[in-house]
Structures are given as structure tokens and as C-alpha cells.
């Protein structure tokens, strides 16, 4: 069953997932860019999978192509939910 996508829940899932990839948790914040966090396309592809599993929100490669920061991604997920 998909969880409700609120800003807080989505940010939590994104933070937990990126931390699981090895990103320093303290550095993960809405203003942080993926470049700053050393998050690459494979990480984003897996993150998109996690988002789909948790919230039922499908993100295509074209959706995330121009997403630069954690905050941008959270906003996109909320908008698509």
C-alpha cells in the first residue's frame, strides 16, 4: 500500500535512501544539490524506484533530468502524487 506523500514523509524517504547510498545524512537538506551530495544518475534511478514503491509515484528519466536539488525532487514528487 502506498504511503501518503507529504513534504515531510517524502523528504524523510529521500534522506533515508540517499543516506543508504553513502551520502552523509547531515548534508542532505532541501537546498543541497545532487552534485554537492555526489549523487549520480544511478542513485537517482534507484531513488525513483524507492519513491514508486513507497508512494506509488512514477518518475520517468525525463522527469528527473532537470532536477538539481533535494528540494526540487521533493516538490516534483508532491506535484506528481
Amino acid at each position, binding site marked *: 500500500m502506498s504511503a501518503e506523500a507529504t513534504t515531510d514523509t517524502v523528504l524523510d524517504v529521500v534522506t533515508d535512501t540517499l543516506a543508504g547510498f553513502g551520502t552523509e545524512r547531515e548534508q542532505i537538506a532541501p537546498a543541497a544539490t545532487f552534485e554537492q551530495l555526489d549523487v549520480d544518475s*544511478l542513485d537517482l*534511478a*534507484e531513488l525513483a*524506484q524507492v519513491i514508486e514503491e513507497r508512494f506509488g509515484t512514477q518518475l520517468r528519466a525525463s522527469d528527473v533530468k532537470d532536477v538539481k536539488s533535494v528540494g526540487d525532487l521533493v516538490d516534483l514528487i508532491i506535484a506528481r502524487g
Partner: protein
Amino acid sequence: MSGCRPQAACALVTGGSRGIGAAIARELAADGWTVAVNFQRDENGAQQVCKAITASGGTARAIRGDVRCAGAAEELLGRAAELAPVLCLVNNAGVRADNLALSLTDEDWQSVLDTNLSAAFRLTRLSLRAMIRARFGRVVNIASVVGPRANAGQSNYAAAKAGLIAMSKTIGVEVARRGVTVNTLAPGLINTDMTRGVESTLLEGVPARRAGLPHEVAACARFLASDAASYVNASTLFVDGGLAA
């Protein structure tokens, strides 16, 4: 990252009802994989493979499906995953439609590309989702020595198999750090139904002076799917008696 295969793990072998595919299915089962044996038409052959596996204490199920069809990847992987998470994919299903390039029709060109390359890509793309999440995966693509080595009358087959080799290398590099390996086997002339009628001039060039046997290819597939091959990625293993050397 060199993880070990999780206890519950399924291998999907396309074209597993006979020949190299059947031998691979048996060999993977002997190594502890639960095996989904895909077939298109030869249900009896697939059931025979499953019967042999279960008689030896393994778990197997025959799954019908034409890998070329839209939705085949979702259907086959979905049904295989009912057995256990699919953490090994063997893209073995293949067809031939031989003719000199001058005489090859568009249909013969496309059908070989569709089955031997495009279907393998779609299955690989979908199977990677579970593999990267599990931090373990094995994709073994069955190419051919005629990918890199010319064999007149097989331009379509050669293009598909060469494409499979290149595709495997690229995808292997993409997912390596998630514990997923993507490798290719390149069999030479192997005694199967599919090679019946292939020009025997190829055999004259084999240093081993004989055709290979399906179980000799299967043993290599077993290795590539195993924990022992965790550092082998984006590579091609020739099983050809020295033909490509």
C-alpha cells in the same frame, strides 16, 4: 562490492526448453538457483527440463512466452518472481534467419534483431530493478563467436550478437557498484538444433577440431552466475574451442 547470493533467488532462462538454454537451466539449478524455464513453443521440452531439475531436488517452473512481444519482459519476470526474487537473467532465446546480405529481407533482418537483441535489452532493463535493490544480480547474455568473427550468411545474427556484447559491456559498467554483473558468453559452434544446417566450414577453423557441447557452455554460465564471478563484469567469455583466437 562482493555480496553473496541471497538464499531465495530465481534465475530466469529464456529459450530454456532445449539446447544451450536447457543445459544452462539444469546447471544453475544444480548450483542452487530456483529456475524459471521460459519457452515459446516447446512446452514438452521445458517441462522435461523442469522435471529433471525437481527430480534432483531443485525447484523449477516452465513459463511460456515469446520474448519479442510487447509486455513479455513484465510477464516473464513477473511470473518468475512468484518463485523467488529474480536475481539472475540468462538471455538465451535466439533465432536465426540466414542469407547473404544481398538476399536478406527486411523481415529476416528485423526478426533476428528483435529476438536476439531488443528482447534481451527489455528483459535486462526490467530485471535490473530488483537486482540493484538487492545489491546482487547476474545477467548472462548468450552472444556468439560470430559477433566479432565474420561468418558469411549471418549478417543479421552477427549484428545482433555483436550488439549484445556491446550492450552487456555498457550496462555492466553502469550497474557494477550495485553488486550486479552483466557478462556475455560467446559460444562457437555448439551441437544443438539451432546449428543444424550451419555451414560446416566454420568447424574447419576450430582449433579443437570439434563442435562444442551445450553443457560446456552451461558450465561457464554457472560460473558467471555464481558468487565466485563477483569481480567479473562487462566481459565476454568465448566458449569456442579457440575459434575466435
